[in-house]
């Protein structure tokens, strides 16, 4: 596989196809078993991350590799060797702001990265790669956490870099991204090279065929359901300084999409409903009865479940087995009279989910951390489905998943609706929200801008609302 200067080269492949390993080899994190790497025609050995840097290879990882205690500016410049022997904080701040400006992002560069959202953290990663004099830039799912607006901005930068002669290896599960930006497309499958073709010769269908080795249907479509009774009613929910005035109702079997740009505070609404960061004003009614949710235990009691957007940090206990993860919120059900865990029962229920959601793992005793992203997400879903929720909040459930896994998750969401569960879907991928939701609530900077029915929702209208271009907030309940 060859990567040319001034090209954007897309790399496609399902999770587990070997993309991440390829990145790790190129950035010197692991050593190859065989084969060679050439830079500018010279054979090189990328023995360490440092050597990769010297060769001008930089990577933006799918899971942000940030330093939570360092400031944004420091995160950007920590691995720079050319900034003199003494750290000039003022210059660093200015330069950091300049780099972020190129990305069109405004962040407080003095703030510790700990407090940033995943999206912002990823932006910092990109800024870090940009700030190094890169010749080869590897981007692993850079758009996964960005909203459409930011994606456009990013692509502008990527194209500019291409113009400067930088070779860009672009890895994404979003077909539309790939076709919008890539010059050439390479597909990997099961750790093997399958094909490299100019974009013009590739269609989404052919790419997917190469990736999965079979033909797949179009983007997912919901099967219609008949909504049942109102399960959840939210009136004027607010958390001081975070969001305010969120109101909606949700029926059994309905999917409510939460759309908005980064910083729209959608996740915070989810966290408030789940009791992690409780709301301090407003009312929540479940089955028309007012409830107080001050903790996740409260939420679980009334049948609200929540899957986090940060699967890596907050989703699973990696060293624990699949079964133990699945039963974590409901462990009490699997205890014998003496408080011992009934392993057989636990395994049985996990096995059930393994089959139902086709979790690919050797057994339910396998450590959750060893699974691929898609399968991890299915374990997370199993864990919460096992609480038999009435309301299921899914925060970015398909982030970082490949097409196959994504489709499976969509399938699951559809089934949830059919089973009469009320679903709140938080997603930055507008097509996903549009395709999956019955209604779409659009937020902007902590305020509810509009609620659309799926019939009246279009990409343009939602985006306009998310960017605040509606004259008055239209609240359609």
């Amino acid at each position, binding site marked *: 596989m060859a990567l040319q200067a001034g090209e954007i080269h897309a790399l496609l492949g399902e999770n587990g196809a070997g993309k991440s390993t390829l990145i790790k080899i190129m950035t010197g994190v*692991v*050593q*190859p*078993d065989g084969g060679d790497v050439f830079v500018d025609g010279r054979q090189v050995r990328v023995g360490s991350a440092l050597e990769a840097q010297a060769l001008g290879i930089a990577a933006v990882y799918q899971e942000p590799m940030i330093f939570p205690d360092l400031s944004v500016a420091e995160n950007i410049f920590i691995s720079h060797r050319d900034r003199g022997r003494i750290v000039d904080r003022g210059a660093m701040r200015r330069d950091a702001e300049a780099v972020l400006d190129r990305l069109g992002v405004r962040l407080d560069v003095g703030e510790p990265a700990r407090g940033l959202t995943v999206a912002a953290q990823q932006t910092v990663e990109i800024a870090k790669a940009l700030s190094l004099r890169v010749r080869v830039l590897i981007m692993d799912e850079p758009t996964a956490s960005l909203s459409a607006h930011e994606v456009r901005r990013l692509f502008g930068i990527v194209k500019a870099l291409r113009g400067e002669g930088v070779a860009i290896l672009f890895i994404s599960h979003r077909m539309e991204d790939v076709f919008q930006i890539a010059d050439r497309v390479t597909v990997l499958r099961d750790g093997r090279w399958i094909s490299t073709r100019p974009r013009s010769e590739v269609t989404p269908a052919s790419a997917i065929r190469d990736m999965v080795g079979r033909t797949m249907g179009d983007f997912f479509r919901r099967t219609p359901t008949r909504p049942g009774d109102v399960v959840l009613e939210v009136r004027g929910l607010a958390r001081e300084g975070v969001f305010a005035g969120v109101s909606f109702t949700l029926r059994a079997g309905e999917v409510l999409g939460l759309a908005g740009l980064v910083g729209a505070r959608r996740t915070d609404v989810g966290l408030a409903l*789940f009791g*992690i960061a409780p709301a301090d004003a407003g009312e929540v009614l479940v089955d028309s009865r007012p409830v107080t949710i001050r903790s*996740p*235990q409260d*939420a*679980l009691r009334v049948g609200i479940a*929540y899957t*986090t957007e940060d699967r890596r*940090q*907050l*989703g*699973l*206990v*990696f*060293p*624990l*087995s699949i079964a*133990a993860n699945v039963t*974590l*919120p409901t*462990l*009490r059900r*699997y*205890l014998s009279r*003496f*408080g*011992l*865990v009934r392993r057989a029962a636990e395994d049985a229920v996990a096995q059930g989910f393994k089959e139902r959601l086709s979790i690919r793992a*050797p057994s339910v*005793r*396998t*450590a959750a*951390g*060893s699974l691929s992203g898609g399968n991890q997400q299915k374990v997370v879903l199993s*864990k919460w489905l096992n*609480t038999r929720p009435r309301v299921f909040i899914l925060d970015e459930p398909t982030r970082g998943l490949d097409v196959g896994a994504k489709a499976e998750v969509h399938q699951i969401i559809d089934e949830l609706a059919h089973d009469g569960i009320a679903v709140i879907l938080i997603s930055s991928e507008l097509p996903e929200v549009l395709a999956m939701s019955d209604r779409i609530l659009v937020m902007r900077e902590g305020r509810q801008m509009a609620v659309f029915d799926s019939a009246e929702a279009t990409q343009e209208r939602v985006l306009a609302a998310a960017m605040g271009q509606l004259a008055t907030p239209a609240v359609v309940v």
Partner: protein
Amino acid sequence: MARDIFRRLVRWEGLLLAILAVIVVVTGIAVPGYLNPQNQINLLELSIEKAIVVLAMTFVIVSGEIDLSIASVMGLSAVLVAWLKEQGVPVEVGIIAALLVGALCGLFNGYWVAVIGLPSLAVTLAGLIGYRGAALLLVGDRSIGGFPEWFNRLGQQPLLGPFPLALMVFAVLLVGATVLLQFSGFGRYAYVVGSSPEVARFSGVRVRRVKLAVFAMSGVVSAFAGVLLLARLGAVRGSTAEGFELDIITMVLLGGVSIFGGSGTMAGVILSILVVLNLRNGLALANATGNTQAGVIGALLILSVLVPNLVAAARSRLGRGGSAEAAVIPKLSDL
């Protein structure tokens, strides 16, 4: 990867088992009297209180915290029983009071750690000083002895066959702790809270409650061990059990429990207790000074991790590439 972790785990406990076997065989041949059954009982009995607290400490460390105040709680409980006896309170009542105070000490630690969110190192360091101070406050510069005959006998004479009470108590607690850590819901929570407290919180686990319980348990068990120590020694002073904390933590860590929480098994800890006690006894019988004993155990602590790591690194360099990840830091396998 899971199998890999499992192999690693087996390797860790296998390593300890191998070390134990070598110690027993070599000492058995070289040191007369070592294999004598009475000696085997002695070597356990001499450190049985520490071994008991090791069990509780394992829970604390697995759940990602540390309790440095254990030795001071042991001292305080022993002193309390003695002081109450002086005030005319029967020893039986004194023991119950000591256990209660132990639980309170543990809950007090737990409150600041779990509810207020202070680092356990700081809190229990304050406890280390404070609880010892409370013991000193009660006895001052005195030594209190003269306990009822039944109490001394329980601590100093064999109860059943050649086995003293404390040994049997340890056996029971050992089984209990193993079941609790490896097979119960509480143990599962301890691992989860230690491994990733945030995931636990997002999964509806009452993290605070788990931590409070772990600290309370640590307090009660330490207090209980303090009472057993009192019975064995027959007298108590302000300094009783001083400095035990480092020995106890050493045994837990050698057992393969990660100081960062979330990993380690009771089997490893038990093997570690046996390794340390047998080694110390073997050396002592061979006329090694306490200094030498401490040095050998210190070296063992380092080498037991270092040597396998170096071997693994060498192997990965010789063989095909791959990660030079630490080989024997045991991780939690399929729970």
